[in-house]
């Protein structure tokens, strides 16, 4: 518990210091609980998520960083590796390939990379995965873009 708290505190300080370093990621710690974090990430350019801002919720376990944090999308997103209803993310570094040298910041970077490079062969969102697997890139992109517009962009007017 103490080790995880110390480590999270270091990450917190690092985030404060580097606030401008990565304009795509904005990590915020919960005011009263250092084990709860939220992040706002920008949809990567040249993807159907471009222009959207997606919110992630982090829940950090007691044995962090020996165990990976739990992350899910709060913003609705149409992506093969993200559960459409719960926002759960299927990403190896959050499961078996986790290393304690990863940080919350680097997890955000990995998720942005996943948005740009979906893995349709291990889908959590089967509809989305099937579109890509059957080669219907246009279908996938327009669905993803529609949901980005509906859920991840400020409403106009």
């Amino acid at each position, binding site marked *: 518990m103490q080790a995880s708290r110390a480590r999270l505190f270091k990450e917190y300080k690092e985030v404060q210091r580097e606030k401008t370093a990565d304009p795509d990621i904005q990590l915020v710690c919960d005011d009263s609980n250092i084990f709860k974090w939220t992040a706002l990430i920008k949809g990567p350019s040249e993807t159907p998520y471009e222009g959207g801002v997606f919110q992630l919720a982090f829940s950090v376990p007691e044995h962090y960083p*020996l165990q990976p944090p739990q992350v899910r999308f709060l913003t609705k997103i149409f992506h093969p590796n993200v559960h459409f209803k719960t926002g759960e993310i299927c990403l190896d570094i959050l499961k078996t390939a986790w290393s304690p040298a990863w940080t919350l910041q680097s997890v955000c970077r990995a998720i942005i990379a996943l948005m740009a490079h979906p893995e349709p062969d291990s889908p959590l969102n089967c509809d989305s995965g099937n579109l890509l697997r059957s080669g219907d890139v246009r279908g996938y992109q327009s669905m993803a873009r529609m949901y980005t517009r509906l859920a991840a962009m400020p409403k106009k007017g």
Partner: protein
Amino acid sequence: MDSEDDRSIHDDNDIESLDDDFYMDNYSDYDEDAADVAEGDSNPVESRRTEQSFTVLKESDIRQRQEDDISRLADFLSISHVAASLLLRHYNWSVNKVNDAWFADEGEVRRTVGLLEKPVYENPADADEITCGICFDAYPLSEIETASCGHPFCFSCWGGYIGTSISDGPGCLMLRCPEPGCKAAVDQNMINLVASGEDKEKYDRYLLRSYIEDNKKTKWCPAPGCEHAVNFDAGIRKNYDVSCLCSYSFCWNCTEEAHRPVDCDTVSKWILKNSAESENTNWILAYTKPCPKCKKPIEKNQGCSHMTCKSPCHYQFCWLCLGPWKEHNGACNRYEADKQNETEKIKERAKKSIERYTHYYERWASNQSSREKALADLQKMQSVDIDMIRASQDLPESQVKFITEAWLQIVECRRVLKWTYAYGYYLPENEHTKKQLFEYLQGEAESGLERLHQCAEQEIQVFLRDINVAPSADDVRPSKEFIDFRSKLAGLTIVTRDYFENLVRALENGLCDVEALENGLSDVEELALENGLSNVEALENGLSDVDDNGIITDDHWFCEQCTFANVVSATACRMCNQQRPWSQES
């Protein structure tokens, strides 16, 4: 010509089986007194194993072999012991594979396994303190440890990282540096340096298990609680049956219990069948009718004959004639001979098939339980009865061994007999001659075994009952009755053993002798006699073998027909009146 050859092969096998018996003696010794054998008789045991193409490994043997392999490789490649261990683990403990890969492309092997020759990360030379890559705290150099790559982490973070990995399971044997993307292996030196005692033990256990589980030539004995492993060299003989020191025998190929003469495929089919899943299908066939349109099975449990199939089919038909309801004029009572329904036939067949299966299954299961009972009896025999008999008959241990042998034989025969029922079930129905021969051989085997079982179970009782009568000084010990019993039981054991061995061989050949024969049962009988019952030579060999041990004296002969041990003076068998095969003078 062919049959001549066959005979000679059989003779060879008979001799071999007697050899087996010789080692069998050592084998039962082994069970009783393992320590004794480990020193004194290890050679015969080993040679028997070699001949049988498998070796049973105890934990100490496994460690020894693993250690030998690692040391050999370390010497050969001039690398450290832990590096050799990592290499072998990656190449499933095959020294040859490591050598081949290493000499083909050492650099590639080093990369995949994670054996770096020099660090890929250099700490700033002038720094007094280094930041740990996990907790981000700064530590003096002495509290920082690195794998071969040089990425710095503090002791406590290493401990947590390794501890987590070890409690996650055997994956810890392939642990890499925590730095993302770094492939450097975390070797046993690091484990020993930072892991707790309990974790080290676990790691050690995983390493040992890996040597058996990842090695294509070894498997754990599947018996519950047994910690031995079996090393198997696939030789020329396609006999996968192995028996562990714990006395469990199993098929090395499929790790089901030993199942000669039936092959692995048949066994898995049979086991699947017994799991009742496929019997459901037959039940459906027998007690339901398929919808005439969508073919879904329908069980009618109430209501009238006007059936409407479930959504989405909605087909309406008459339950009795299966004709469409629209054309049905309310009755289908008129008998039309041609319209004998195809489905009725299928139902009939399915019912028969269930009955047939039940027949074989009952017998299979009953032999299974007989075998378990026999095993229990054998244990009781070994722990209690034999000592009583030894005491009352005043005999050394070696002279009552025949009882244990008889029981071991019974256990083995029950196992074979059990599997012959699976064999019989899968024997094609249309191969009539084969079926007849098979049933004949099986019947003979069954009655032969019953005879042996009866003798070992019942006739021994006399000697157990008399135990309380204090032997008087002038009693002849061992008593004449006991000598008779001994020769009968030993004889029956040998005859039964040979019969079953021939049976197994014949079944494994797919009863191919049948193809050579076309004259029906008379020849079949002759063949059966040749295969099974003409073991007089073997029996005589067996007897002389026993003679050397002093168990049977010259004053008995065994009836060829019923195996009864007759006194030498009798010219015909006391049991069945069969003539003695030789005259008194010769």
